[in-house]
């Protein structure tokens, strides 16, 4: 299972999940001891520059394929996969670039977060409304352009205005974004790439509820 994730082999991941179910292996056991270590290793390899983005996307897709088999089995048992947190994601107003934000969403999902992707060209109020609706833990705002990056500030202001700022952690990212910018606009964190966005999200959840990453069901 771990290897199927590392190889980005969706078919193998699916087959192994089906075999595990047929053999009576606990779905949670398959997830936590089979597939999740694979994703963790993917993250480590990517951080070291030993794995490339297309390979990482394939790994995330393999993880999704395995979960397509295992999620219904968990439900049958009246359980849910431990959920790391709820994230509302989107690209800021005026910006229609998807790629970075989608990458982050894919990896967060593969890492156990429940992700709601608002898409592109999203106004601050929309982020705030969805965060309230889902009782989100984290809002992630992407921007590719220097001109639209400034609208990330508007998302934080909208969360503030909606009275949600203290409950929601805000992370920002995108090609022109820097740690300094994140600090300047009052974001809680800056992620330089998709994998560090996952690390940052985990760190946020640890700060919010120290047991959340491993145990919220």
């Amino acid at each position: 299972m771990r290897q199927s994730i590392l190889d980005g082999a969706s078919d193998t991941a699916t087959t192994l999940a089906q075999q595990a179910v047929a053999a009576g292996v606990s779905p949670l056991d398959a997830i936590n001891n089979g597939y999740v270590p694979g994703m963790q290793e993917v993250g480590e390899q990517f951080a070291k520059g030993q794995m490339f983005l297309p390979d990482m996307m394939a790994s995330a897709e393999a993880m999704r394929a395995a979960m397509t088999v295992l999620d219904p089995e968990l439900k049958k048992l009246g359980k849910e996969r431990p959920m790391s947190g709820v994230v509302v994601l989107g690209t800021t107003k005026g910006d229609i670039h998807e790629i970075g934000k989608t990458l982050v969403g894919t990896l967060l999902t593969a890492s156990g977060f429940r992700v709601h992707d608002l898409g592109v060209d999203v106004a601050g109020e929309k982020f705030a409304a969805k965060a309230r609706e889902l009782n989100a833990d984290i809002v992630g705002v992407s921007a590719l352009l220097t001109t639209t990056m400034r609208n990330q500030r508007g998302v934080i202001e909208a969360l503030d205005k909606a009275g949600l700022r203290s409950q929601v952690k805000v992370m920002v990212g995108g090609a022109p974004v820097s740690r300094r910018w994140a600090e300047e606009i009052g974001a809680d964190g800056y992620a330089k790439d998709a994998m560090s966005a996952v690390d940052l999200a985990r760190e946020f959840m640890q700060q919010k509820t120290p047991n959340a990453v491993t145990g919220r069901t």
Partner: protein
Amino acid sequence: MRPKFELLDKPLIERILEEAFQLIDDPGVRVAPYVVDLLRAAGVTVKDGVAHIPEPLARRLLDLAPRGFCLYDRSGKPAVRYGGDDVHFDPGSSCLNILDSQTQQPRPAMSADLVRMVQVAEMLPQFAAQSTAMVCNDVPQDIGDWYRLLLVLWYSEKPVVSGAFSAASLHTLVELLAIEAGGHEALRRQPRAVLDVCPSPPLNWSEFGSQNLVDLARAGVPAEIVSMPLAGATAPVTLAGSVVQHAAECISGIAIHQLAQPGAPIVWGGAPAIFDMRTGKTPMGAIETVMLDLGCTQVGKHLGLPTHAYLVAGDGRVIDAQVEMESGMSAVLGALAGINMISGAGMLDFLACHSIEKLVIDAEAIASAQRLIEGVVPRTATLAVDMFAQTGLRGDFLTLQETRSLFRKEQHFPSSVIDRGLAGTDGTPDILTRARLRVDELLSAYQRHALPPECEKEIIAFAQREGEKAGLEGLPEILKPEPTHEAGLMR
């Protein structure tokens, strides 16, 4: 012979165009409602926001686009010629951050920074045009685009590469240009600026892009398409595939533009880049990014259109050997490729940061590139024999009349930024120190030439009116805000 570099052979260019024409028909190009009627009236099928442009129509419209045009300086002289193999450079544009001259740390750019950069670029002959280089963080966001143009028009006499940040604000930019030109007709006759218009990859002319194309065509202000395929992310991973996408975005943009106003000036331009598969960054200094620029512009030149590219930018975060290696290499290659306007000088950190010190260093690389494309010219009746006839084997060429009359044409003399052992440079061994000194020297020598008084008055009145709508007090770097009553009392 003018030295030239071509990356693509003719059969490959033809394949690229063949596929580009195929793409604009199927799957087609996403367009905004603003241009749907225009396209339908020309016989284009538009379904669910996607235009399917047939090749014969696209080719006819490409033929209508002018093969060349000029940008004029403030005095009305043609100063930049788009078309053919003419090569010009301008600084990179729209940066939010500047590398602080003293600390060499990035910080948000302010209007005073833009003015300094404009003044330095004004003094450097390597830059035929200015750019609206920075977004001024001390100006309200909604007026950021026209305010930077105002500052450039105020402090520079050179042509300008600029652009609007939204569909709505384009009107204000055009209005400013018209006031400076002496009216809309004068602006149409002698445009001083070219305005960038960006499609969104892949194959999407958004509301902003579509409307800018049409409005610029009708205003007679030259448009510069800046297509930005990111190879492997928002475009095919292969360089050839991304060049196809760039061509399809440019052809569809030109089609919309020419339908709005046949014969309106437009540039085949772009800022393509590869998508680094380890980091997700878009390195402007990568050789593959440079190859994309060269490939894309070569296709435009093959069609006989004016061209633009984004080069002379580096990816390191400080002024160092990496940044200057990347910038210098691409300056040389861009010049050899005969690209009409090469934007990007001064920029580093993946276009996230500008630096005035880097601009003066880049100017030296550009000067070398400009010297290179002058080529090796036979300037004397015999190349060497007549000179040898005078000196024999003594070898005292230094005393020859030819030496004295021709050395200035043969040799380019770099400024004190380049260490050639010139007095005053050997005591400052690092290039950053020499660049800082050069910036100071250029700023001291800069003198602003005022616009005609009536024109200045009109520009100020217009800017104050537009600025007030966005809550701007005064006009930063032009007029200080009026002191308020309370402030007066406090004094």
